[in-house]
């Protein structure tokens, strides 16, 4: 359920980031891929690949490209991220940062590969890939920082300190 809510929020965010009043680099960020990364904690690689497929298809629809390559790219990205995270037992900020970088890189490179095999002219080049990886990585870093802050806020140690202060 949480993942579904996160998916919708990420979808709206991805749409909102294309607003003309925002910084021009922001549309390169792919919040939907962060949901795929988040799914890697709870699901097996194939389950994450399904999530990636859905995210990629939605991205294709939103960006009004050919529907399909994005889904394939998302599926590959989800599988790779889940496999790497499990293999190296990643946790905390490293999980988010490596996961988001890996997911964006895999998704975009797969998309370009598929587009190349289909004979379709890609709508962005290497600089676009780099921008996507950088911005999605930055978003992953922000999520990691937010998660750490939330954990610190909800930690039992902090709760104990608060109780002791009241005594």
């Amino acid at each position, binding site marked *: 359920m949480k993942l579904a809510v996160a998916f919708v929020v990420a979808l709206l965010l991805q749409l909102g980031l294309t*607003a*003309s009043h925002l910084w021009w680099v922001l549309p390169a960020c792919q919040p939907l891929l962060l949901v795929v990364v988040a799914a890697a904690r709870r699901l097996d690689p*194939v389950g994450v690949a399904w999530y990636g497929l859905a995210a990629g298809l939605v991205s294709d629809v*939103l960006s*009004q490209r050919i529907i399909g390559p994005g*889904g*394939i790219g998302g599926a590959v990205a989800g599988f790779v991220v889940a496999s790497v995270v499990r293999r190296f037992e990643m946790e905390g900020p490293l999980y988010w940062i490596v996961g988001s970088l890996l997911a964006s890189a895999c998704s975009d490179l797969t998309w370009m590969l598929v587009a190349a095999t289909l004979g*379709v002219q890609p709508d962005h080049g290497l600089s676009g890939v780099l921008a996507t990886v950088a911005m999605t990585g930055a978003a992953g870093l922000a999520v990691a920082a937010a998660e750490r802050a939330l954990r610190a806020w909800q930690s039992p140690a902090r709760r104990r300190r608060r109780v002791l202060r009241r005594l």
Partner: protein
Amino acid sequence: MVQLRLRPDLAIVVVCIGLYIGSAAQARSPLGGTALSVAVATIAAPAVAVGNAVGAAWQLFWTGQRDLRSTLAELRKLRLESAELRRNNQLLSAEVTALRQGSRLLAAYPSLAERSVLARVIARDLPRTHTLRLDRGSRDGIHVDGPVLGEGGLVGRVDQVLEHSCRVQLLSHPAAAAAAAVAGVQQEALLVGGDQPRLTGLSPYTQVPLDSPILSTGSEGIYPPGLVFGTTLEARNDGLFTVVPVRLAANAAEVTVVLVLAPTVRGAP
């Protein structure tokens, strides 16, 4: 009825292949302006509007902050300029005061103006060395033992001369001494310095009127005769002499411009 069970890992591969084929079909026959694109645009509109609102607010905030920063910088600059102007104003006021004092000094002693040099006090040490430092030196014709005249009267004599400055030994210096006479008293006396300058050398029980002017006589060969040293305070007998405390006419703490006279030639009539 045949039940088709597909493993999830195989299913996703199959779906991807299907997507690839579908993509190829789309690439061969592109569709434009479909209902899907209209739906996407409709769904995207509120999110884009929110994004634009956030972006516009951020731009406003950023512009305001930049304006505030530039305003504060301007304020800081203006404050510095104001302080600089205030300092300049003070310097100019001091300059004007000195010029006025100098012009009053020259007007007070017109006969001495020709053989004297107007100088400004650049440093003073009254409590320790009882000296003033002037901004004129040997290059301006200042010589050792030149009498120094303030607006109220004599201040002291030049005791050290450099090229661009000179030092004045005040009458309050413990080693200072000058021949003087009290108006209305026949005898000549010796004015000596110290924390309280005084006249000595008067015979005992000499009647010295209070607040009488004390003038130079020139007998010591430094100060020209007839210039004011100060006024008398209450006289008293001390041993063989009558001692008269003196209130000096020129306040060395306030004098800013002085007239340095050419030294008197010793032995000259």
